[in-house]
């Protein structure tokens, strides 16, 4: 599958979910990349860009798979980025599930039919789950314990399962799963940035200060872009340099930690959850209790990705925005 190698000609790249958070990071880099000839966008909205070749596909529709297959076989592409994941506040849980799990299923089926040489899927380090039995640094082969309380994380774990099965069925394809630490940056919106910037005071658990990681949005974009050419396959932890305790992350982001005693906090969260206020997801409890630090060494050696920014700077970028 040397078609995807640079220097062997111009690259054609397909992207789903180009208007999402990851798409916004990746598309400008692809536009600037002189090796990329055109970007086939498979989405419901057309993004800006000179190289963009828009093809409207709604991944939540039942006939999405056929449309995708048509689009991908019409003009063969060198790589497909499947970036259609939600990071905004999820009001409609079933729609999110439909898009992420069923959408991914459609994409994978189409990719298998079109025999794409390369597929890139983003994921989260949160899929490892924050548990008391985590080692200090989680490697890519650590079990994905997820977070049973969070649909957001559970869906990602399910997607990872699908992608792994797909990779095993298609050993000739390069399938890269990039597990991103929380992406932080002025233009990014995800649960973590919302947690850090929405209020001036962020509740934490009294007596606990787990280690968190983060990655600057520029680094995240670069990692996605690097996956276009990397001579590797499999999962990679994409994390920024260094770690911060949660309180340090909150401070760097310009807010203040408010430690609450565990039982009180838990009760309050569950009550809020029952009432339906989406102040804080219950799922967060794990992540503010135990450390979940992923080891980024494999991305450095196999993917050739080195983060430029320390988590500190990434969090500080959040404050400046």
């Amino acid at each position, binding site marked *: 599958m040397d078609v995807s190698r640079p220097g062997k000609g111009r690259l054609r790249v397909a992207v789903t979910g180009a208007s999402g958070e990851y798409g916004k990071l990746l598309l400008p880099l692809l536009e600037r990349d002189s090796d990329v000839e055109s970007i086939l966008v498979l989405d419901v909205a057309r993004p800006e860009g000179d190289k963009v070749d828009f093809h409207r596909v709604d991944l939540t529709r039942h006939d999405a798979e056929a449309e995708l297959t048509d689009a991908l076989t019409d003009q063969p592409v060198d790589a497909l980025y499947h970036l259609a994941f939600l990071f905004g506040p999820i009001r409609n849980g079933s729609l999110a599930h439909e898009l992420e799990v069923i959408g991914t299923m459609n994409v994978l089926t189409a990719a298998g039919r079109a025999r794409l040489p390369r597929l890139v899927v983003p994921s989260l380090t949160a899929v490892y789950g924050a548990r008391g039995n985590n*080692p200090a640094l989680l490697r890519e082969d650590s079990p994905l314990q997820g977070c049973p309380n969070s649909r957001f994380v559970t869906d990602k774990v399910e997607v990872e399962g699908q992608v792994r099965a797909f990779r095993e069925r298609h050993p000739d394809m390069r399938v890269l799963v990039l597990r991103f630490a929380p992406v932080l940056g002025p233009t990014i919106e995800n649960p973590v940035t919302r947690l850090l910037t929405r209020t001036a005071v962020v509740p934490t658990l009294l007596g606990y*200060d787990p*280690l968190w990681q983060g990655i600057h949005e520029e680094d995240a974009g670069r990692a996605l872009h690097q996956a276009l050419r990397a001579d590797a396959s499999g999962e990679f932890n994409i994390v920024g340099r260094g770690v911060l*305790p949660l309180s340090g992350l909150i401070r760097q982001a310009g807010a203040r930690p408010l430690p609450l005693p565990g039982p009180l906090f838990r009760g309050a969260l569950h009550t809020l959850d029952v009432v339906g206020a989406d102040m804080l997801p219950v799922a967060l409890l794990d992540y503010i209790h135990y450390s979940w630090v992923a080891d980024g060494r494999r991305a450095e050696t196999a993917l050739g990705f080195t983060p430029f920014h320390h988590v500190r700077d990434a969090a500080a970028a959040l404050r400046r925005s």
Partner: protein
Amino acid sequence: MAKGVLGNDPFQRGAAQRDGERARPEDKAEPSAKGSPSKPRAKSPGADAPRAHAQGKTSRVARAGRSKSASGPSRAATKDARTRAAKGTASPPPPKPPAPPRHATATRREKEPSEGAPPRRSATSQPPRPAASPRKAGVSSHAPTDGHGVEPAPGGMEHLREPAASTVAPTPVTTNEGTPRTERQREVDHALAEAVAAEVAETTARLAVDEALERRPGKEDAVERLLATELTTELAEAAAEEALDHSPTTERPEAERELAAAVAARVAESAAELAVSEVMDHAPRGGPPTASDERAPFSRGARRGEADVGDDAVEAETPDLEATYLEAEVEVADPTRDELPSHARRSLTLVPPTSDSDEDPTLHAPHASRAPEAARPLAERATGMLALARDIAGQALASEGIGRALGAMNGLVDAVRAGLGTGGGAHLDEYGKDPSLVRRLEPVLEFLYGQYWRVTTQCIEQVPRGAAILVANHSGALPYDGLVMSLALTRERPDLREARWLVEDQVFHAPVLGTLFNRLGAVRACPENALRLLDEHRPVVVFPEGYQALSKPFAERYRLKRFGRGGFVKLALRTGAPIVPVAIVGSEETSPMLGRLPASFLGLPFVPLTPLGPVPLPAKWSIRFGEPISMEGVPAEAADDLGEVQRLTERTREAIQGMLHALLKERRSVFAG
């Protein structure tokens, strides 16, 4: 303050000395211009030589850089000094001085400290040395020759200069290893610190006096300069000695030296103004003899006779003077007085630990009886000066002590905040250790390790370099043993990589305690973490007994529990890292478990009931390191052989239990050791 700034850095002293030596030939070229009738000071080359020698060759680079940067200004300063000196010789040396105006100086003394000292102090808050260094070369180059121009009796000067030279020379190596300092070593340190202080005092005094003289237009005179300098130097030295004697003896001679130098520099600067005014006021009537008179009260006993020869006119005035003096500054006199009995000792450590002020009246008596034969007004002035010096030294000392206490307090507060989860450090390593927090806590840890627990280690040199698994007994309701082990290894074996200790989940995930331990370097006990740490060639401290050792009642102290499932042996077999058995005695008594409070509502199995809560008891700790058990010859596959694992586990366990028994037998008292 940086070390170099205070002049206790041998390299820096070397730099300054070098400049002086370089500049000296120029001065010698025209000794007549200086109007110094006598030969250049005989003592100074001899005194300087060993010092320069002691600095060693390694300082050459630093010296070169510094002297280059300093050479420009220093030349100018030398020239400046020379012209001034020439001017000074134009006027003939003043005749023998009558009694100086005492009342004027008395008022001045009261005024000066209030108006002169505070701005000074603010100036000294920034490092004094860098500002001074360009000028220093010039100053030190002309001072020795000047000194001889006016000092007819060489014996007098010798006393002042000697300490710096004679003490620095025999101890060229001032680096301090982590070994405990013996009494003898401490003496040397003390002497060294004083020597440093003397030198700093001298230099700073010169600079300050020069500055002060420049501020007074017109009446510049080499003699006055010298007098003022000497006066200031004496004051500063006395103050530094006193500060040293008052300060608690530390294990760290650098700190002592730094303190001495700081005090000396500060006092010298503050006193310079006063000294200059003092000298200026009576210089018109006084001449070279004043020098000896003026110094008499401060100088060592050998010179008292000399001072006695001083003028009788002064002596006549003494009684009433004495009275006023007594009222005015009762507590002031001891520094002068203290010097008198110690004249047998030549130069160093002349001031014995000084008394409190309430002792003063009684101790003042001998001084009074002796005083009439000395120059009274001068003595009074001198005591005034010394009072000032003492005040300043006291303040410096207080600020030092308070600073240390505040530092420790801040460290503790930071630690508590880190434990509660609001600390927010920004420079953690991937395991969660916060080196900056450890640094801020250093005073507390130092106190705990050195003074509170008095940790002693035996055979610590047995710990091999590189990856090693230190297996120790676990004990105490609050497991301080891991922390103490890591402290011991960093202190006694700085050649090893930073050690980490593994902590069982029950402690690691305990609120506050677990978080705090994590920031201090604890790592959660699991094979992945241990492998990673060993791959980094660190010594890893493990407590295979785990949580059951912590929850056992006090009656079962020092009785080893089951050694887990032999995880550490498997680890050693897989990595080839040797196992070092370690026995720790003292940890059981540090936080004995008196009972358990149920705390399931906190998510904890129980909260231990200890005598002082989280505060440990001051039991004496001793740690013995055993013979390493090498894994050579045992194949890595043996990790799967349960029998082999069991055998090695038992061997380690027996080694530890044996050492524990030995240590317990040697121990006479739990708290005294």
